[in-house]
């Protein structure tokens, strides 16, 4: 019986893994350091939960992985493929050619050449001109590339030119193709950038999926593998191979979804405290609230939807001084350097413990802090040390209160869910939050988030605001649901989880921009 699932989250500091049973209970969990090549840390965390599980490996039906592979490849300009960048829109858009504004080193690492050829649509769906298939051939003939990125003007509303060119390239050149309407929303340059990055990541995606498949095979696991994406939902490996750029940002999404699941609260502010930083996000209906602003990755502006995350420089390893705290942190060296571990650096963990905030299983921490304060000198000196610790906690609480207020957008009725390894740092009451919830297994919330994720699909387009509007919206909903099924969802369980209509200004006929998202549990 394949009733168990494993969630793995590869973070910056730790790789976490959990095993969930059929009722969704956490029955094994492990934290291992993330390794430079990522694969070793993944294997170590996987082995650790399998050992804790003991018997029953055959019962593992699914493994869900959230990884920072793709993000790191872009940040470090490593293992990226060479992309032929093709834009359909000429003579429109020629005032700003592809890859304008890219950092020179990233452009050099990624671009095999760029061209703007005829094609694309107007806002009302008319063709600017037919796709310039001969120009596409002239561009690609003799060009050495690993993949092609195709972006057509207004393709989120009219994707057929991208599809025609994709077919031509696959048939005549045998190259993998990224098409922009599958990747981003309106905003040509940002969508094109995301599409080029996506095409550059094909090799990286193949490496990750191969590592995961191999790790599972080595351990004799017949489980079906999935990858987590930036909206907190899952995709099959086939889907991930086509849209690797969607895995960027899956970490915060997983921790938000995990927090919702573990706490049973669907609308909340989630505060995830790590070693060096604290991420705040908002749950709306169990899903991460998405950022309205463009997202920069490796110096390149993109417009795909990412969780709206506010990161502040506060973590368990944040260095405490007199006066003030951080922004530097001892990071993973906390186990050697913090006072509670017998070290000599005063950290936020020490300050929190001195204030009576201790994590589970922290035997002797309080005593060690008291000893350290006493050892710091008698009388005045010792008092000053105690004072510094107290002030550090007040500053940290102030930072959290301020950040919670920003994320809450003035609403004060939502609870705060505290997760992450440093969640004990947070006070028991925060103005702006109705209460503070500390769920069990909060330290591995992100891995839990990966394990429980749904599959999803989305559509972003422009529709007339008149009589045909409701029919057009129905069609957009159907398309989003079909995309969710393509991503692995069970057709009978797909629901529309997000529908957003934005009226457009300065147009002749009233029009609305519509964003639809569908999600559902994975098909059995």
């Amino acid at each position, binding site marked *: 019986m394949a009733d168990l699932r494993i969630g793995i989250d590869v973070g910056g500091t730790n790789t976490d893994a959990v095993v969930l049973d059929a009722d969704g209970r956490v029955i094994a969990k492990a934290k291992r350091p993330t390794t430079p090549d990522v694969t070793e840390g993944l294997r170590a965390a996987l082995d650790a939960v399998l050992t804790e599980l003991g018997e029953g490996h055959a019962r593992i039906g699914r493994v869900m992985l959230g990884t920072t592979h793709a993000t790191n490849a872009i940040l470090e300009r490593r293992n990226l493929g060479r992309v032929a960048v093709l834009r359909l829109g000429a003579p429109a*858009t020629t*005032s700003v050619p592809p890859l304008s504004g890219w950092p020179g080193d990233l452009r050099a690492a990624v671009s095999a050449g760029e061209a703007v050829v005829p094609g694309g649509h107007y806002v009302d769906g008319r063709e600017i001109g037919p796709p310039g298939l001969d120009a596409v051939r002239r561009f690609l003939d003799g060009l050495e590339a690993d993949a092609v990125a195709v972006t057509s003007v207004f393709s989120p509303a009219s994707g057929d030119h991208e599809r025609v060119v994709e077919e031509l390239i696959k048939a005549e050149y045998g190259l993998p193709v990224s098409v922009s309407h599958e990747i981003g929303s309106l905003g040509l340059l940002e969508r094109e950038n995301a599409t080029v990055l996506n095409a550059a990541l094909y090799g990286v995606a193949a490496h990750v999926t191969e590592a995961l498949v191999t790790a599972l095979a080595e351990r004799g696991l017949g489980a079906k593998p999935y990858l987590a994406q930036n909206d907190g939902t899952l995709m099959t490996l086939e889907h991930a191979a086509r849209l690797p750029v969607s895995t960027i940002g899956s970490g915060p999404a997983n921790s938000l979804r995990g927090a919702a699941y573990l706490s049973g609260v669907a609308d909340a502010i989630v505060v995830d405290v790590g070693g060096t930083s604290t991420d705040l996000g908002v749950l709306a209906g169990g899903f991460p609230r998405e950022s309205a602003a463009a997202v920069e990755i490796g110096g390149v502006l993109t417009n795909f939807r990412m969780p709206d995350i506010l990161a502040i420089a506060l973590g368990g390893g944040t260095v405490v001084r007199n006066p003030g705290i951080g922004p530097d942190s001892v990071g993973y060296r906390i186990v050697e350097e913090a006072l509670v571990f017998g070290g000599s650096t005063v950290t936020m963990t020490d300050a929190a413990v001195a204030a009576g905030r201790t994590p589970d299983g922290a035997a002797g921490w309080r005593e060690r802090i008291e000893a350290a304060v006493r050892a710091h000198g008698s009388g005045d000196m010792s008092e000053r040390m105690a004072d510094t610790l107290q002030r550090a906690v007040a500053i940290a609480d102030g930072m959290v209160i301020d950040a919670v207020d920003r994320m809450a957008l003035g609403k004060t009725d939502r609870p705060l869910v505290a997760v992450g390894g440093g969640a004990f740092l947070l006070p028991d009451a925060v103005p702006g939050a109705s209460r503070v919830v500390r769920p069990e297994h909060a330290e591995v919330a992100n891995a839990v988030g990966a394990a429980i994720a749904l599959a999803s699909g989305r559509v972003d387009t422009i529709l007339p605001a008149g009589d045909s509007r409701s029919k057009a919206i129905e069609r957009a909903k159907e398309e989003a649901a079909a995309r969710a099924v393509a991503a692995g969802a069970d057709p009978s369980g797909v629901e529309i989880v997000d529908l957003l209509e934005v009226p457009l200004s300065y147009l002749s006929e009233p029009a609305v921009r519509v964003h639809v998202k569908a999600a559902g549990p994975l098909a059995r």
Partner: protein
Amino acid sequence: MSIDESDIPALARGCAVLGTGGGGDVRTGSLAAVGAVREHGEVPLIGLDELDDDALIVPLSGIGAPTVSHEMIHSADEPKRIAEEIERLFGRPPSAIMSSEIGGSNGVAPVAWAARLGLPLLDADGMGRAFPEVQMVSMYVAGLPADLVIMSDIVGNVVTIRPVDGLWSERLARAVCVAAGSSALMADYVLTTVRARGAVIEGTVTRAIEIGRATEGAADPLGALQGSLGAVRLITGKLTDVERRTTGGFVRGTATIEGTGDDRGRRLTLELQNENLVALEDGRVRAMVPDLITVVDTETAAAVQTEGLRYGQRVTVLAWPCDPLWRTPKGLETAGPRAFGYDLDYVPVEELTAHG
């Protein structure tokens, strides 16, 4: 003086400040300007006194819907078609390009247009800020006949309109723009140097660059910006409410800022229509259009567009006087509070803020 690649970020920052919340995002225009200057070389920035009396000056601006301009970006050929049409109509080529509107994207993109045409850019514009409508330009206020509008679209269509006045130029230009896919490049007015004198707002390109430079690397960006603008600080605080609604093709709205620090206990509300139009405190007007009201990030002094206003932002609202041209009766009739539907008599920002 000339504009090279290194001037463009400062120009863009300054244009964003002069956009008073509107005028479009400066990012795409900056990319176009950088690309064109790299390809065609730097653009000379000249004054009216450097042109012959009968030299032709072409005020240019992009016109269209923001959603469209983010997707269907301008063709590189649009300025060339307008220049060719002018040469056909006047029998001589244009001598300089001018920005119709220094605020927002239309302040930066002219560098690209001038570079592509191999023409100098006039250190002047038609607004000294950003306004939403075609007739809201200094040339109209100065009484120049709005008898010629030339538009060029992405596929190469050129439309020449001979409107009877400025209001018709707005109505007809908007209709052509919609037919062209809601994006076009437009020359409204073609000026000779003689006619431009007193009918354009001079020095605004240099001013935008100076404004951008003032905050660059400054220890106190906000103080530096305020000093450079000669602006009054209306409030420093936190955005606590943003409300938007679409009426008559424009996005209108209200933003509320609650004071923090020294301003604790105070509250400012901003009335918006693409641009920031009126600032109110306790029902009392503190600044109003055509004076300039800009919301900036308190820490970085970067301008925040009305579309970018979000709850929780730490912002400062600055206000400063408009060009004297806008304070004339015709100026106020064209772009004063009543032109935007506010039943208010115009009072200069200096008087409104004289007693704190």
